[in-house]
């Protein structure tokens, strides 16, 4: 007989206009375990977490916490009930000190006034307990995202040590930082904290989690011990019967590719922008996929932004179809047939309040000019065609984009650019934070687009992905393009990694 679950969810249901996000989901979380919540984008993970933390109100079902039925009306009630959450984006105040971020709302007080000395002392103790080297009186924004995330965890655990929800905490951390995070998680688990962990990195799930719950399309697929379910079985449960994309994914088989040899569509010659990226050369031919590899902040995005006119270069020349061109704005770039899918799909791309259809036709409409509106029938035709081609779910063109999951939002953004039939497609982290199924689909799509003659610049932090797709890989390090490697079939992730690490091709 196992012990009582600390948190139990029965038959929870949540609807949005046009979407059933959760449909009768059950879920259990035991003290002293790390539990993974798995599922593709749109499976309902984020919704379930938001219901548990009181951001959303459920439309049915019940939440039982430590044997008692509770109604979670808001984030404050969730915290008081013992459920704390650390989100992918750090939800702390960057302008306040580390100590304040841990204690705000619960500051130690003396005679009604905040006792700063006691607050700093206690914060320093908490931080030391988790083996972190942090000056608690420094402002939070003087530390990296990884440290900020750990501070958020310190706060969450100190607020209520029963249930800790970690929503995609590792997506912007490097390997050492993940190790540090896992050490903290293990320590907390051993203290009896129940941890719910959401991540798209399967290796991480298998490294840290004891059990997992799998959701699919808003329904419960099952609850498993990590030791009883291998990765391939897990993925097949996440995406259901459609195993088609899986072999391609698991096998690591690279497509046969012969680099196109035609005239370059775009040539950058010593292109540079001070403080963003040092002079670099780059040729992209129609039908060619160029990968950009490098660590976060190595200048990948900055290099790409110059090619889209999002930033102005202050040196070097850019040729498009042979002619020297100065891109003064993204409008110029679009007119030359360049499309840019940015990594911040929420802030720099989609309009959440508009429907899928409206978002898809937005760029096309803009290029036609507002005086010549696209007929409704044509809009519907475009929307339906791309919803089908990219398998956007739900397949309802009138669903509001903000109600879609991250992966599906990414597909809408892609559709918007593809509809304009660009000659060069720049993709900045198109698969960041989306699940394996959608990832495979997007990769396949990129390969197909290139075969049809589109030039693609593909930026990704995942080397495997870059290697699988690219003909050639530009490696960036400290804002400098240190090498361009031909992906001739013998290039390995290790060699790319070594190039990133050493700053030279070996």
């Amino acid at each position, binding site marked *: 007989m196992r012990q009582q679950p600390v948190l139990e969810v029965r038959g929870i249901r949540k609807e949005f206009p046009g979407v059933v996000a959760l449909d009768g989901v059950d879920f259990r979380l035991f003290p002293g375990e790390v539990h993974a919540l798995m599922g593709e984008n749109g499976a309902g993970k984020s919704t379930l977490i938001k219901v548990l933390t009181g951001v959303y109100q459920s439309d049915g079902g019940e939440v039982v916490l430590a044997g008692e039925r509770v109604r979670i009306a808001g*984030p*404050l009630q969730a915290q008081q009930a013992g459920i704390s959450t650390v989100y992918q984006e750090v*939800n*702390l105040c960057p*302008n306040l000190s580390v100590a304040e971020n841990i204690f705000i709302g619960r*500051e130690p*007080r003396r005679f009604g006034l*905040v006792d700063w000395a006691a607050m700093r002392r206690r914060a320093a103790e908490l931080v030391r307990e988790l083996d972190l080297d942090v000056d608690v009186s420094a*402002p939070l*924004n003087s530390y990296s995202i990884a440290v900020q995330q750990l501070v958020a965890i310190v706060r969450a655990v100190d607020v209520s040590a029963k249930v800790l929800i970690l929503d995609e905490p590792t997506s912007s951390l490097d390997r050492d930082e993940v190790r540090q995070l896992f050490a903290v998680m293990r320590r907390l688990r051993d203290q009896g904290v129940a941890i719910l962990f959401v991540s798209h990195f399967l290796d991480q799930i298998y490294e840290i989690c004891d059990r997992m719950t799998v959701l699919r399309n808003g329904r419960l697929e099952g609850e498993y011990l990590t030791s009883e379910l291998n990765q391939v079985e897990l993925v097949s449960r996440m995406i259901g019967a459609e195993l088609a994309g899986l072999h391609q994914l698991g096998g690591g088989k690279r497509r046969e590719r012969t680099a196109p040899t035609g005239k370059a569509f775009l040539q950058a010659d010593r292109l540079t922008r001070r403080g963003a990226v040092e002079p670099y050369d780059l040729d992209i031919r129609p039908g060619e996929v160029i990968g950009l590899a490098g660590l976060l902040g190595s200048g990948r995005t900055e290099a790409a932004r110059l090619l889209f006119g999002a930033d102005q270069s202050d040196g070097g020349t850019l040729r498009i179809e042979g002619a020297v061109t100065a891109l003064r704005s993204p409008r110029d770039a679009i007119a030359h047939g360049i499309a840019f899918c940015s990594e911040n799909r929420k802030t720099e791309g989609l309009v959440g309040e508009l429907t899928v259809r409206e978002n898809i036709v937005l760029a096309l409409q803009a290029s036609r000019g507002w005086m010549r509106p696209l007929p409704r029938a044509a809009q519907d035709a475009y929307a339906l065609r791309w919803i089908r081609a990219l398998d956007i779910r739900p397949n309802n063109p009138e669903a509001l984009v903000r109600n879609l999951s991250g992966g599906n939002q990414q597909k809408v953004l892609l559709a918007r650019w593809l509809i304009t039939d660009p000659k060069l497609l720049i993709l900045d982290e198109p698969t960041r934070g989306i699940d394996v199924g959608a990832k495979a689909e997007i990769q396949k799509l990129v390969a197909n687009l290139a075969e049809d003659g589109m030039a693609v610049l593909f930026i990704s932090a995942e080397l495997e992905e870059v290697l699988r797709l690219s003909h050639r890989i530009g490696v960036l390090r400290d804002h400098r393009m240190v090498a361009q490697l031909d992906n001739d079939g013998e290039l390995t992730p290790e060699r790319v990694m070594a190039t990133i690490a050493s700053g030279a091709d070996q």
Partner: protein
Amino acid sequence: MNAHALLTRLRGQIPLLVTAVLLVSMFSVGSVQYEGFFSGQVVLNLLIDNAFLLVVAVGMTFVVLTGGIDLSVGAVVALSTMVSAWLVEQHGWPPLLVIPLVLLMGTAGGWLMGWIIHVFEIQPFIVTLAGMFLARGLCYTISVESISITDPQYTAMAQTRIPLGSLFVSPSALIALLVVAVAFVVLHYTRLGRNVYALGGSEQSALLMGLPVQRTKTTVYAISGFCSALGGVLLTFYMLSGYGLHAVGLELDAIAAVVIGGTLLTGGSGYLLGTLLGVLVLGLIQTVISFQGTLSSWWTRIVIGALLFVFIVLQRLITARRR
């Protein structure tokens, strides 16, 4: 890493340091250039002449720290002078009843604006703009003329000089300094004050950390309303009249003082003592120009305008570097 943290912390202080340096150098230049400038009384006169602005700017600091803005303060000051003069002079109410009533009115008005801003998620700019028109308009329903105050308690407040050695200050200046002191403690040593900073840092985060966002926001505008009404009361002591054209454009002076004092208009960063320095800088510009004698008083505006440009660009550079 610690050196980096120290740098980040120092960077937040740059605007404040610049203001302090500016204040000291302006005062030094004035002292060298003009006879009789270098005296304690010149400094105290800055406080006496700008007591009402200081109080209003303190309220504005709370609002700006949350990332908001309050355009209604000048109009609320005018309405407060009007209501005071009207009730005291034309209805014979005792000042000790009128003053609390006026303060309550200002607080309630501010609270209401804060409530509207939060509940209907409307830009503070437009809500307080409406409040500004409303308060300014209400002045003229009382009278379109200036009403002078002859009540002995008011004239006593206007004429009392509290000696400080060979120098003196007015009761209004002391009240303003008391307001600064209380506001300092509230901002830095109470949960309300820390919530104000948190709200300015990130409203979304403050909400998710379980902080009382709505209460903090309405309180901040209520504080600004209270400070405006108190500023109005101090202005009646100073001018001995109520008039619908009092304090025209005061909201802009208050915002200028807050910005020159180093508070970021985006919220979350700044100090109350900076606002005090900002008010003194504005006052000192006026003093220098009056000592100079030949320049028109409109030069005050020109200098303030130029300073504001410099400080806004400075703020932008600092926040841009931070990202």
